[in-house]
């Protein structure tokens, strides 16, 4: 039986080793540090406050300047919903003509009954019967993909699944990462044709890896899940995402594809991708 030693803080060690060669040019601040004098026309963004004409940091992070806007970007923060974001969440509660969805954000999101597309695709008014059969569509514990419809003043997020692209997720695996690592792109749903695996990159950091949505209809999908090579591909993609997250690298369709390809080139099995050796290879490839 093989036993592998866990290297404590392997990502930190790997990054620290490479850092000693070239110092970064990012300005890192801690809480309470003064950033600079507050001029008349500077705009202060998140993570800052003005005290006695100086701009002071309220969080620990990297100072970012865009023209006159100065913000402090933290390493990771809970997801903040914006209209149009594709998200993946789990149903926690049903009631009052809505589903409550947990997005791992600052507040729970709501999916109204009027915001889902009914089975059959017909457009009609929701009746009391529909309300009683909400559990037929999504029940507690189900994973769904949706789009952010609106964000109210008090922070309540409204979702909708008014498209065949969104809806119930099955036949796959969920990977949770920090929301800051998922770049906002044009396309959040992608398919890796060479593996036959589809992903949904939720902006809230929940990423779905599984059978592509177009193929996941009927009983054939259930049978597909018994296919060992498909399961291994799903595991490989999921591990690529986890490894990128451990090394605090940005997650996008390209970076996931590159990581998966890298692991195949080096002949590393999906279960061994989390080990220090592959992390080192990945870091060197990035440099």
């Amino acid at each position, binding site marked *: 039986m093989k036993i592998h030693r866990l290297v404590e803080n392997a990502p930190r060690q790997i990054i620290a080793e490479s850092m000693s060669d070239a110092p970064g040019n990012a300005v890192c601040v801690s809480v*309470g540090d003064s950033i600079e004098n507050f001029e008349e026309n500077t705009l202060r963004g998140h993570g800052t406050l003005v005290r006695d004409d100086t701009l002071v940091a309220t969080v620990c992070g990297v100072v970012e300047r865009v023209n006159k806007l100065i913000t402090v970007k933290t390493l990771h*923060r809970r997801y903040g919903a914006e209209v149009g974001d594709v998200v993946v969440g789990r149903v926690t509660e049903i009631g009052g003509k809505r589903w409550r969805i947990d997005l791992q954000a600052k507040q729970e999101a709501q999916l109204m009954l009027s915001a889902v597309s009914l089975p059959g695709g017909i457009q009609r008014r929701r009746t009391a019967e529909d309300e009683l059969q909400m559990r037929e569509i999504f029940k507690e514990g189900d994973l769904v993909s949706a789009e952010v419809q609106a964000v109210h003043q008090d922070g309540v997020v409204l979702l909708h699944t008014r498209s065949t692209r969104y809806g119930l997720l099955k036949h796959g695996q969920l990977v949770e990462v920090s929301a800051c690592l998922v770049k906002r792109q044009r396309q959040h749903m992608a398919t890796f044709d060479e593996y036959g695996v589809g992903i949904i990159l939720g902006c809230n950091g929940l990423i779905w890896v599984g059978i592509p949505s177009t193929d996941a209809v009927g009983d054939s999908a259930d049978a597909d899940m018994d296919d060992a090579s498909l399961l291994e591909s799903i595991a490989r993609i999921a591990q690529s995402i986890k490894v990128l997250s451990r090394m605090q690298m940005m997650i996008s369709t390209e970076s996931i594809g590159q990581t998966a390809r890298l692991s195949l080139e080096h002949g590393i099995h999906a279960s061994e991708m989390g080990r220090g050796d592959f992390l080192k290879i990945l870091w060197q490839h990035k440099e």
Partner: protein
Amino acid sequence: MEYVSPEGLRLDGRRDKELRRLNATIGVLQSADGSATFEMGNTKVMAAVFGPKEVEQRSLLDADKAIVRCEYSMATFSTGERRRRGKSDRRATEISNVIKNTLEQTIMLELMPRTQIDVYVQVLQADGGTRCASINAAFLALADAGIPMRDIVCACSGGYLDNTVLLDMNYAEDSGGGPDVVVGLHPSLDRMVLLQCDNRISIETFQEVVDLVSEGCRAVAAFMREALVEHIRLMAASQQPRG
């Protein structure tokens, strides 16, 4: 029992105004939004922060600001003899309230209305100054979670034994029968957010002790700041684009 030798050395070989050895590790738990461990000599404390998140008890929901919940507990193996403490341990409840009060003054609660921030502090090894180490660890965990704060919050303790003002006492000195003063500080704002005193002390000595402990707080704050900036520098390197 002699706590300060004629040469001015304490039981563990320190001078009267010397802090214990400090150590901090940030980002130790995967599941928490923010986490940290903080060591002051042999006292070792771990803090975990969850939030800002949805308020669990609707009756506590505040539409204007976030609410803070704090829980302090000591591991059964943290003291010399293995002791199991119940949930209604009075000392733990008191320290939980102290930490909550200190953090409420530090966190910018008005920026996160209708949410809840949970802070859990666990003492892994107790050798005096646990509430100070708890506050410091909680601050590091909050910083790791990216929660906005008005200033660094740091805490330190001190006392008066054998006619000497002592800084950062360990358990043996704590049990010496002299006063135990705890100070919590916002160093840049120069504002005291916590002041506790156990036992009897004269007003002049009290002022001396408070001044010394405030100095100790600032030294702790400088140390924590260094640890945070180093942590950010390391982790930010991976998020930067190549080149």
